[in-house]
């Protein structure tokens, strides 16, 4: 079974440009999450999809970040315009169980974003 995949693995852009990150969850997983780790600090939650619906976007830092999951399969996270403080590693995770909350989140390899 394929794990969570993310593309690209690295992205280097200039301040003010736009970047789109993609995440493909494990097949059959309804739950999809975005997290990020900035400046080697804690991994912070950004948002949670259940299928195509945004269940919780309380961690999104500002309106420069837009996440979508059309069709309930893969998800994209767009940063527009990018700022220096957006640099970090963006992780995607997916999980299967919609009801109990005991499910394990499986993470992808992350996208390392560098904003110059």
């Amino acid at each position, binding site marked *: 079974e394929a794990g969570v995949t993310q593309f690209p693995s690295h992205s280097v852009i200039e301040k003010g440009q736009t970047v789109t990150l993609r995440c493909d969850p494990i097949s059959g997983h309804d*739950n999809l999450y975005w997290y990020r780790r900035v400046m080697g600090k804690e*991994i*912070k939650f950004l948002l949670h999809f259940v299928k195509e619906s945004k*269940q*919780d976007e309380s961690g999104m830092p500002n309106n420069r970040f837009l996440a979508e999951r059309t069709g309930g399969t893969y998800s994209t996270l767009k940063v527009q315009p990018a700022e220096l403080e957006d640099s970090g590693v963006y*992780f995607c995770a997916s*999980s299967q169980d919609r009801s109990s*909350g005991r499910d*394990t989140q499986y993470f992808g390899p992350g996208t390392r974003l560098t904003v110059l």
Partner: protein
Amino acid sequence: AQSVAQPEDQVNVAEGNPLTVKCTYSVSGNPYLFWYVQYPNRGLQFLLKYITGDNLVKGSYGFEAEFNKSQTSFHLKKPSALVSDSALYFCAVRDFISSGSARQLTFGSGTQLTVLP
């Protein structure tokens, strides 16, 4: 609000010796607790979790963790460390009582484990 503390940024241990990576947590209700490991240039890999039941949880690669409710701790342990265990370890918690639709994990800042040959 939920929080996790990993008090040690770095842990060094000799190969063959036991290792412990510390984690304490704070939640309003009952915790779901997780350990993840990140090897160099790799993603976060699930090691083990505590949901309910036996306080000693066994996971991948010979790791185990003990849930201690009175001390609000969930330390990761291994009886005999290997050089290949060298990696970045993250503890995470989810608060059951405040779950509802909220599924987010709260992570600690990570502990870099180095096993010396």
